[in-house]
């Protein structure tokens, strides 16, 4: 069974697992909303400042949620040695990676999309350049967090102090994608007279391209015992 077909079977399994553990998805979403609320308390009720930095808060919340959902999806595999059982089946390491990264992106992208209306309400933000573009920037940024995140999660879920290690490894790495996403979302929300949104999105897409390919190559190396 060549890797592509294996990848779809594994993706189906991942989606089924995410559906079965959707209670956790809900709690991560509530966590995201709580984070958004707390940012406003941290900044103060000055609505113009909140509105100006709404995209920053959205991405901060997404970043914090990403570690939670990435860690959980890795834990499901490591628990009971399920990942090893698949590796010995044998299943191609890259198929394992892309299936998991794909479903992690769907999860994080959905979480991000659900946060958008909440950001709109809390910070009186609106998408001047269109909601479609805003959701696209959310999904591109989510994919950028997930590519290295999935690679690191399979590693930190088996290391001591893994829950500290994942953000410690992931956050500095995703700085370029974070800058691109925050700026892209910002100009989408506040208006983009000079049309710079595509250059920012281009930065995020470049990050995606590099890490979706590199991490796919490196993931199988982490499966060897």
């Amino acid at each position, binding site marked *: 069974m060549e890797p592509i077909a294996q990848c779809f079977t594994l993706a189906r399994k991942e989606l089924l697992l995410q559906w079965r553990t959707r209670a956790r998805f809900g709690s991560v979403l509530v966590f995201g909303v709580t984070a958004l609320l707390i940012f406003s308390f941290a900044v103060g009720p000055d609505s113009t400042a909140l509105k100006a930095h709404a995209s920053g808060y959205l991405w901060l919340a997404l970043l914090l949620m990403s570690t939670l959902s990435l860690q959980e999806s890795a834990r499901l595999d490591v628990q009971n040695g399920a990942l090893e059982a698949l590796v010995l089946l044998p299943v191609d390491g890259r198929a394992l990676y892309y299936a998991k990264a794909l479903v992690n992106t769907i999860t994080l992208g959905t979480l991000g999309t659900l946060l958008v209306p909440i950001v709109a309400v809390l910070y009186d933000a609106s998408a001047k350049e269109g909601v479609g573009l805003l959701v696209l920037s959310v999904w591109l940024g989510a994919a950028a967090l997930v590519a290295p995140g999935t690679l690191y999660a399979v590693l930190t879920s088996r290391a001591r102090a893994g829950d500290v*290690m994942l953000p410690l490894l992931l*956050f500095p790495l995703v700085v370029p994608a974070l800058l691109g996403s925050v700026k892209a979302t910002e100009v989408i929300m506040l208006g983009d007279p000079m049309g710079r949104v595509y250059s920012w999105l281009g930065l995020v897409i470049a990050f995606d391209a590099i890490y979706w390919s*590199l991490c796919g190559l490196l993931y199988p190396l*982490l499966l060897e015992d």
Partner: protein
Amino acid sequence: MPRKTTIIGILGILLYIVGCYDGLLVAPADRFMGDIQRIMYVHVPCAWNTLVCFTISLVAALGWLLSGARARAEGRAWKWDELLEATTEIGVVLGAFLVVQGMLWAKPTWGVYWTWDPRLTTVAVMELMFVAVLALRGFVDEPVRRATWSAVVTLVAYVNVPLVYFSVKWWASLHQVQSSPSTVDPAMVLPLRINAFAVLFMSIGLMGLRTQLARRQRQALLGESDSDSTASSGGAA
């Protein structure tokens, strides 16, 4: 008999003394920035050598990942892992100096300790990424797994450095133009070059010591004595 890397290290220290003397007292002050510009003679060499160290870490990571099962089984591959641990730590130490120097330079020049200057911000992010590699090594006990995992993370982090630089450059250039020293007077190039080699030689000396320390720690962890794996990785650097 001190190993050849230690000799190079001592040579580096001597060169460093000469370079600093020249930079502090002999080279002419910069017409606009005055004496503060002399910080360049330690700042720029540290910057170059930080990148050199992390580049060697990349090579060491690739060396380990591409080493065949036979090389690993016979212990020849450990020298890559030791080199990675050494150069990553030295790179992080030099990077820390860079950040401190950058801040001490920024305060008198721009009145704030931290400007979002793309170079300095890239160094800070690079520092965090490679500190995370060292932290990861601290949390994994099994040597083979630790070697493979840190090699993978080093690869992923290194690829990110140019990306961070350009994205921060775009992101910061919206606020203020990037500052760089005025035209470099030839008399200023000499101390810069001396110190560049001085810090490089010192780094090599440090690598010699640090790889040996890494090997000893691994052997202590594995409870083995001075086994055949050391014969093959004698003078490591």
